[in-house]
């Protein structure tokens, strides 16, 4: 089975803050990691390979340093990695990103039977690139997959919903976004870590993908960030005391004011 996993390198969002003077992100010293949900997609790919054989290729689009995320994926057991990187791809929103990644997948020598994504990336939380890529490749797609098993014609899939789950059958080839509950990424072994360190990872740029220029980068992105600002500071805590009934009346009033009831 040929498996493609799309991963994103993200800053460890717990550690990102905003400078309240300049409204810029403080990313200095914040470590970059593989988007945690993409780890679940990677593990699902590795388990499918363990059981059914095949090859796992990881693809990431980002700046040159995103190669580190690909190296990490290799150390966990992926077979191949490709970086999509070009200045011209910079500033892409999810539309342009989906388009660009789909071109890279089309360029693969052997077309995948299955493409896996994390359910969303923790920096943007958009959850849009998976469905976008699937559309550009004209593949059927299911989101929030917890378990995927190959069948004769395609896959049997457990898809998580708000109040339970659904079982779907889907034709091959297909694309999925994977939830956290699916699995836990295995640890790298030392041997794979060392091999990953030395691995040659090709970078595919503008000339390799030959995209329609108005579909990529900033120009290909319908959405624009108009402003970035710090979230409202958490209001000072309010301590209520006194008669329970009065306290609760006041609490409910305050919760209503905060728009949370």
């Amino acid at each position, binding site marked *: 089975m040929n498996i493609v996993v799309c991963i994103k390198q993200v800053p*460890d969002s717990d550690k990102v803050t905003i400078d309240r003077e300049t409204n810029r992100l403080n990313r200095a010293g914040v*470590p970059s*990691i593989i988007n945690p949900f993409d780890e679940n997609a990677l593990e699902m790919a590795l388990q499918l390979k363990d059981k059914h054989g095949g090859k796992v290729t990881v693809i990431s689009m980002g700046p040159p340093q995103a190669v580190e995320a690909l190296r990490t994926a290799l*150390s966990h057991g992926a077979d191949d990695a490709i970086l999509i990187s070009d200045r011209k791809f910079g500033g892409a929103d999810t539309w342009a990103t989906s388009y660009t990644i789909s071109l890279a997948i089309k360029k693969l020598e052997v077309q995948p039977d299955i493409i896996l994504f994390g359910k969303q990336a923790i920096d943007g939380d958009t959850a849009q690139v998976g469905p976008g890529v699937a559309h550009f490749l004209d593949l059927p797609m299911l989101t929030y997959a917890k378990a995927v098993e190959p069948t004769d014609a395609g896959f049997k899939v457990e898809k998580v919903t708000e109040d339970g789950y659904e079982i779907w059958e889907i034709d091959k080839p297909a694309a999925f976004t994977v939830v956290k*509950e699916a699995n*836990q*990424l*295995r*640890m*790298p*072994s*030392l*041997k*794979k*870590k*060392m091999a990953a360190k030395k691995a040659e990872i090709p970078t595919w740029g503008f000339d390799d993908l030959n995209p329609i220029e108005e579909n990529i980068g900033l120009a290909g992105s319908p959405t624009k960030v108009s402003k970035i600002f710090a979230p409202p500071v958490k209001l000072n805590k309010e301590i209520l005391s006194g008669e329970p009934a009065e306290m609760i009346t006041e609490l409910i009033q305050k919760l209503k004011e905060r728009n949370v009831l």
Partner: protein
Amino acid sequence: MAEEIKVFSDEYEEYLRDESRRSGSADRIVFAKSDADVSAALQEASQNNWPVTIQGARTGITAGAVPEGGLILNLSRMKSIGEIHDSRLTVQPGALLTEIRDAAEKEGLMFTPDPTETSASIGGMLACNASGACTFSYGPTRDWINSLCVVLANGETVRLERGVDKAAGQRFTVGTVTGELPDIAMPEVKSAAGYYVKEGMDLIDLFIGMEGTLGVVTEVELKLIPQPAAVNGLTAFFPDEEAALKFVRFLRESAAPPVAIEFFDFQALELLRRMKTENAAFAELPEMQSHFHTAIYFEFHGDDADALEEQVMEAAEMMMELGAGEDDCWFAGDAREIETLKKFRHSTPEAVNLLIDQRKKACPELTKLGTDMSVPDRELENVMRMYHDGLATAGLEHVIFGHIGNNHVHVNIIPRDMDEYAKGKALYLDWAEKVVAMGGSVSAEHGIGKIKVPFLKLMFGEDGIAEMKKLKELFDPQWILNQGNLF
């Protein structure tokens, strides 16, 4: 005005317990916020002859913070953390290890003592001279305390500094208390059993590991060191325990030994495998292959990443020579991966606690029986054989894990009923005798508390205990402080 001493009522019920799961009783409770509060509480207790039990975060597992009547002097609200100057950090006793670590990390520094329970308070850590995995290289809490303030039973406050306040031979003076140090021999291994005594010693060391029996520590100055530039961790899985023990010897004797060497026996791995499938809280543990039998975790710290890598590679070669497959290991090259391996380590005692709690439902008196004994290097294989033989003969469910670098593993016996519990207890006592004979300690890091009092006697004999009691009486003639701990 001093913090009010409150009459004990049900709402404070949680303060009757610590992580030993033992429950006690109390008549009064006070949440001290300052030295003055502590001093006032002690004076009042002394006047009324109330026994005083000192508490921090109550994460100890020897019932050291479980009150036996009288006043609870709770220090958990006395938790301020000062500024760092010259790699020194002054904190109050209620400050938690995790908070201290965060404060140090912000300055690129670290506080090395690393008990597995990071929500322990520094006061508690100091009281039992706590240690952890990295103690193998960095030493226990004692080595990282530079000075402290202690309030004595009479209400007097004394400040002691390492290198400044020393005993003259056997004679010592602490505030208005003077006397002779007890005449007892210290074990040659890592130990948290009883008072620490040495001719010409730093007097601060009398109060580290004293389990609240000599005074109440109200301020601690910690020593910090720069964080290493590179950290590598590796969990290696071996096909049998013999190979794993050989690997421990190899690591320990290598030119640049790791900072930590940890052990997980077959039963520990089996328990984690089971928990991973049965309990959602353990679902995040990495998958373990079925041929993994015994695991060794080790960690290297250094400033040269390449040199570190070479050390790890060298260890990996030995690992394979001893029969582990080339992929039979988990490698952690960054903080996040190290965290995963540490979580795995922490999961072992958590899993045991969970199992005990389940069994408690059928048999409420059950508790886990956990050993905490260390032996000299030469006895490692012998002590492991002793544990396995004893457990096999008694047919008890158990796991063994812990700080094997210091020949200090925890055997956790998980009894199914009171009959097994009795069997386990007998076994434990038998082991304690043998460990003492090997030159070991009956408690390497948890302290004696109330639970291990008979073991302390076993280790130091009637005479040794009598010597320690003499010291106790000099500082606390009314015997109000932490009654039931140590003696």
